[in-house]
């Protein structure tokens, strides 16, 4: 399985950002099984990175690898939507119908 590369853009210590970080760590452990690399970027400290990636909403999660590039916004509280949005193969219990998104 190819390595998953994720970047999570947050804004400082806002509740949404804190929740997103916590949710992401949970999803990573529970669903992605350690085969991932997660970078957390605080756009208040690194606004130029947000500019380069054209981030509007925070939190924003970007999956760079494996392709295709996908973006998910929000505090990531809806695990199903996060996995759907990232277009990642999920646990066997889930349906295989993950094409597209909504």
């Amino acid at each position, binding site marked *: 399985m190819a390595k998953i590369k994720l970047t999570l853009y947050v*804004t400082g210590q806002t509740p949404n950002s804190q929740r997103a970080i916590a949710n992401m760590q949970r999803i990573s452990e529970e669903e992605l099984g350690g085969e991932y690399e997660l970078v957390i970027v605080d*756009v*208040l400290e690194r606004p130029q990175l947000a*500019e380069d990636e054209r*981030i509007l*909403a*925070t939190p924003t999660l970007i999956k760079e690898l494996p392709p295709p590039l996908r973006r998910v*916004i*929000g505090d990531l*509280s809806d695990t199903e939507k996060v996995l759907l949005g990232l277009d990642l193969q999920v646990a066997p219990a889930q349906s295989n119908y993950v094409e597209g998104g909504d």
Partner: protein
Amino acid sequence: MSTTGQMVQVEKLRTGIPGFDEISNGGLPQGRTTLVSGTAGSAKTVFAVQFLAAGIEESGQNGVFVTFEESPADIRRNMGSLGWDIQEWEAEGKWAFVDASPHPGEETIAAGAYDLGALLSRIEHAVRKVDAQRVSMDSLGAIFSQFESATTVRGELFRIASALKEMHVTTMMTAERTQEYGDIGRFGVEEFVADDVVILRNILEQEKRRRTIEILKFRGTTHHKGEYPFTIIPGEGIVVIPLSTLELRQKSSDVRVTSGNAELDNMCNGGFFRDSIILVSGATGTGKTLLVTWFIAGGAANGERCMLLAFEESRGQLFRNAIGWGVDFERMESEGKLKVVCEYPEVMGLEDHLIKMKAAIDEFQPNRLAVDSLSALERVSTVKGFREFVIAMTSFIKHKEVAGLFTSTTPTLLGGTSITEAHISTITDSIILLRYVEMFGEMHRGLTVLKMRGSKHDKDIREFTIDGEGMHIGKAFHNVSGILAGALTHIPPGEMERIGGMFQDSGGGS
């Protein structure tokens, strides 16, 4: 507002957009956000770009452009034709883009609560990076369509507007509206930036497009009310025509200048005033262009600079006719005394004509200006637009202290007035009527000075003739009445003598 009992003056930031600073009494309220609302094609993006461009060019203020709709590449390319080199300003650190435009093929899925903190952080970063004093955001509708929750977006835009206020930046946000006359904007955006609202319109009136700008409100400060026409000129951008801000403050001269014809000068008690506006009205073929030709010849003979704006005849025709009357336009032009501008009225809208005329007058600096004919311009405009045009033009040339001679073609051969006269007659200082006079199966031409402000003038209706040397004014039509009304009656000589005896001829005539 912590200050009580103390007047807090709303400071304005001069935008540098031609005409806008006049109608806004000095510019946009400084440090606040102004909403610019308009339908599709109402030049919102041009206005937003020009706000920054004028800041860089006129007052050395840098700007940040937040684009929600078009990509920066598109904006750079589209605005290049208006003479703004955005790429160069970016390289010089005067302009920064915040690209918030949607990218095709990249879908974003929402999984939980979010805000636009990243956008705010990017805008703040860009403002600090170029030390911006102006920010334009174009256009809000596009960001509402990128996110599902309109409530979140509205709240976040409010947060961005407040943050920019904290940074003492003057901001312009554009928003779409669906009708020219109706709600200010969709999405309820006016609720959070309701302090200052400007509306751009692109109205279809009698098959003609007319652009107008209206300042709907400026909280706590003054502005001119109502719609003002504007146009977009390549190399300049938006130019607002500030009609009602024109001031009746021109000086008045009592120096007389020649009309180019000694007999007409006599009728006017020594000639026209130097900075007056003269309207010549007559049916087709009564000799209006002849009067114009001699007005110019008279000026050139005195060493004055003359300008002729012709809307009915081509250069070739004008020059040939002038030669026929003994006036050599070609030589005058080569000597730099004359500039002839010929144009079909239909080539552009009246607003563009006005701006072109102003530019031509500013460049040539004439002492005399003739427009032949003003009524030809009626064709390309609505009645309201034409009236505004006439007022703006006459006011402009009065400020320049230029003698203006305008001609107006009346629609009927005998008598009659035109729309032009109805709009212009009160603005003009003198009116000369040229009329056909039918006498026993023959057409004669009659001329009279109907009014002349601040001067005595001949009250007779005189016959005038045209030959190879120009025009000659002869004796009065004493045995005809009803010329002006177009309903002539001939009075027998016996009756004339009797009436003459009754009133004891006061010794008029020349």
